[in-house]
């Protein structure tokens, strides 16, 4: 109960802090959402329905992962430099409550952009949407897993190294990741790597929740992402509880 109250109040803090920037932040997300769809039709001249499917559902997945792996740790690093991080750490709130509040805030900021992407893909390229309730846990799991990793990086490393390291991790993780294309486009060994990493399954539960089409069993996909999420939260919880 107290944890929920702390979380809500920290979320309110985040909202108050970014209040003047909200139109700008949401506007950027919408512009990116539009850009993805139109930029994409220049990039790939022969659009098949598979390409559209992967690209349109991959875009929100990618931006959730990038939010967790780069935007969130950068904010944490900034908070560590300005003293806000220490201030919040001295408040009687659960150690991961600030992270949950930040994730929620940035997730909500992304929502309009994701809606625009999917709507445009549907109108312009005939993407067939079949949205199920499972999209909600999918979005939360994807955002939380990426954020837990990003948060652990930002708390464990010196603030001025955070941006370099989190960019490196996201590039290494995402460059050859089957988010915008099917897994079987990759060489076999890389496919095997990705069967162990969460990224493929993340895009699968997002795509499944939005269109009903899963590449692997939905339960397997959810289980793998949930396992990675639990691991990430354990690590970042530890980092947050660490006293120097």
């Amino acid at each position, binding site marked *: 109960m*107290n944890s929920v109250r702390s979380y809500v109040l920290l979320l309110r803090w985040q909202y108050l*802090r970014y209040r003047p920037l909200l139109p700008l932040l949401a506007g950027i997300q919408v512009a990116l959402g539009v850009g993805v769809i139109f930029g994409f039709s220049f990039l790939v001249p022969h659009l098949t329905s598979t390409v559209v499917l992967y690209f349109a559902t991959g875009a929100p997945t990618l931006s959730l992962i990038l939010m967790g792996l780069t935007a969130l740790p950068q904010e944490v690093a900034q908070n560590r430099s300005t003293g*806000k991080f*220490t*201030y919040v750490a*001295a*408040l009687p709130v659960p150690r991961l409550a600030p992270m949950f509040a930040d994730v929620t805030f940035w997730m909500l900021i992304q929502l309009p952009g994701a809606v625009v992407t999917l709507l445009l893909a549907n109108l312009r390229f005939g993407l067939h949407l079949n949205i199920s309730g499972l999209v909600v846990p999918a979005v939360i799991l994807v955002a939380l897993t990426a954020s837990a990793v990003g948060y652990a990086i930002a708390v464990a490393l010196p603030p001025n190294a955070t941006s370099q390291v989190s960019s490196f991790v996201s590039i290494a993780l995402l460059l050859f990741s089957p988010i915008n294309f099917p897994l079987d486009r990759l060489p076999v060994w890389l496919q095997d790597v990705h069967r162990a990493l969460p990224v493929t399954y993340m895009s699968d539960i997002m795509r499944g929740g939005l269109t009903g089409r899963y590449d692997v069993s939905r339960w397997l996909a959810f289980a793998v992402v949930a396992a990675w999420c639990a691991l990430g939260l354990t690590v970042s919880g530890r980092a947050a509880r660490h*006293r*120097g």
Partner: protein
Amino acid sequence: MTLLQVEHVTKRYRGGVLANDDICLDVAAGEVFGLLGPNGAGKTTLVSQVLGLLLPDEGTIRIGDVDAIADPAAARRMCSFQPQAAAPVDGLSAREAIELIGAIRGGRKATVRTRASELLDALDLADVADRAVPMSGGMARLTGFCMAAVVPGRVVVLDEPTNDVDPLRRRALWQEIRKVADDGAAVLLVTHNVLEAERCVDRLAIIGGGRVLAQGPPASLKAQLGAPLRLDCALDDPTNVPRLPAAITLSSVTGRRLLAHVQHHDVAAAVAWAQSAQDEGTIVEFSLTAASLEDVYARWVEAEASAA
């Protein structure tokens, strides 16, 4: 009743700095306890350990019945805190920031609202309290104090609350600090403002090089100084320091300023000497005042510095 008890706390940072060395002190309910000491003495390090942000290498910290080292979450529930760095108020109005922290610290909405207004009025911030524009340095500092005082913990930790604050608001601030203690909190106050602290603190510790150099009420520390009066002279020529009579003990000469100690029964002799020196022109002006906490501070910190 002792609310904060620090025993033998020792902290060495990775990299080797021994920031706290066997620190012992305690603060009772209703008491303002001052923590004085030069830059880098280890004051912030000590309060960070009280708040469970840093782990001591040795020693114990108890807050009420709670072992603050074993249960930092409980320690944080019982402590409210104003950091040395400016409180994170960007984007918020002072009132929003204060009420938010009041709510996070578990205060009831109506109580928090009333208390926030009270504090804003007392510190003369009511006019600017509802503007969500970047605050001036002093206003941010005062808002930081209000955030620590809106729902005060049983222990209230204030790390340099008077920095950046103008003289009139500083006066009001000292009063509010006193009130927080009078309402039953144990206040641990870090400050460099020795002269003003003297009037507000009940007891204090002077810290240097991570160790407690002296501890007690201001009056007894001054008594230990053994020289109740201070003779302060402005020299005409810093290279020409006059010879002092036996009644006056030289304490220091810095540039044109000569400081000396005088006992009560030597007042007449000291004033006569100073008057004649002024007539001769070796000193330009002089004053004889009661020794202050600053003299105590200077003596301990200078002794520590020359020993190190």
